[in-house]
């Protein structure tokens, strides 16, 4: 298929699979809406993760069978989900105590921009007339132990999403630990963006040219 041959680097599923490899067994994980949700499909066999959804469920399971769902059992994306055996429900203040209090091990989010100091912008373009909506993103990045971003390396217009400094309104300051794109896995370190791994067939120079701040290699 032409779309397959045109793909440079990892597909979305492969990005999610690559990220899932880095989540230790037994982690409490909050997955953002969209590409981050894919990660749950690719957890390596033998590992069990407990999924937290900020609207009040620890132990979130997959989507229900058609017709078997409950409109009052949903995830943060407001889609129907299930609860695994051993799940727990709780109110919103407890849910965000889990987040803010450092009890959640990992959060995976999408991004508009990530800066080389770990700043994240993922909630607003700041355009006039846009309806601002932030949800739980600012609490998640402020409180969860590790925050990973999964995103395309560049915007649809070809602009780098990994930048020297975010131009969109921030979600949080110096909060991102690692970024997974279709081209590479990149850590945020005190020295800036540092390459962890290239996707197959992609050169360091190719990634570096598409990154809006210096990319270091170990």
């Amino acid at each position: 298929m032409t779309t397959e041959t045109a793909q440079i680097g990892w597909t979305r599923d492969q990005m999610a699979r690559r990220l899932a490899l880095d989540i230790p067994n037994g982690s409490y994980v909050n997955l953002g809406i969209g590409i981050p949700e894919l990660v749950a499909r690719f957890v390596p066999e033998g590992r069990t993760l407990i999924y937290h959804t900020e609207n009040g469920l620890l132990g979130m399971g997959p989507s229900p069978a058609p017709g078997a769902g409950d409109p009052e059992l949903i995830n943060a994306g407001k889609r129907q989900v299930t609860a695994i055996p051993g799940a727990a429900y709780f109110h919103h203040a407890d849910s965000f105590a889990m987040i803010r209090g450092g009890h959640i091990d990992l959060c995976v989010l999408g991004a508009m921009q990530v800066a080389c100091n770990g700043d994240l912008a993922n909630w607003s373009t700041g355009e006039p007339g846009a309806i601002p909506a932030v949800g739980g993103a600012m609490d998640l990045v402020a409180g969860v132990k590790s925050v990973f971003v999964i995103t395309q390396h560049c915007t649809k217009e070809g602009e780098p999403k990994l930048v020297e400094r975010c131009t969109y309104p921030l979600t949080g300051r110096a909060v991102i630990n690692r970024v997974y794109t279709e081209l590479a896995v990149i850590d945020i370190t005190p020295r800036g963006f540092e390459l962890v791994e290239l996707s197959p067939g992609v050169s360091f120079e190719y990634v570096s040219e598409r990154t809006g701040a210096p990319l270091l290699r170990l």
Partner: protein
Amino acid sequence: MIDKRVQGPAQAVADIPDGATVMIGGFGEAGSPIELIHALIDQGARGLTVISNNTGSGEVGLAALLRAERVAKVVCSFPRTANSTVFPDLYRKGRIELELVPQGTLAERIRAGGAGIPAFYTPAAVGTPLAEGKPSQTFDGKEYLLERWLRADFALIKGRCADAHGNVVYNKTARNFGPIMAMAANVAIVQVNSIVQPGQIDPETVVTPGIFVDRVVEVAQPLHESELVAAGASYP
């Protein structure tokens, strides 16, 4: 004898005045007290401040209250939904005020209101546009923002079951803001699918103790927002 039962939604919301601050439970449709909201639309109070996580779907429930132009201001974390243009239209026309609050800060401000804590520090939103105008302080080398409590005149909440003492249990993720809003409102009104005799809810499983609840009203078969929206329903 304590009996917090009221006859129906209309009676439950009859005394909400113009200009009141009303907390409305729910995250998306889960926990949205549609029948109480529709009764509030019928009742006619205007100039309300609504504290709720979202701004409703379609043209029913919370979105219908906004569409009827009864709400002057919303305090909210996520006022966008895929299937509602009510809030965006009002907001762009300048006909409604928005106070945007990170979701966890919204929850904690409500919890603090109910717990008698007038202000607290949180790390959420430090360095972002939502920190503007808020005092900050450094504790142990990390910066935090000062946030104020939220209180309300009334709270409209949906539970699954209550007793006449006002003890409430919820359904799954419909619990969300219900327990903390009940604490933070002067008058907490809870609609439930069924009201039982005191003693029929195991005290070990009570989620909201009756001290936080003023009125319980039975709505045996509550409407589901997603079904109404799918059917193209509009209220009134």
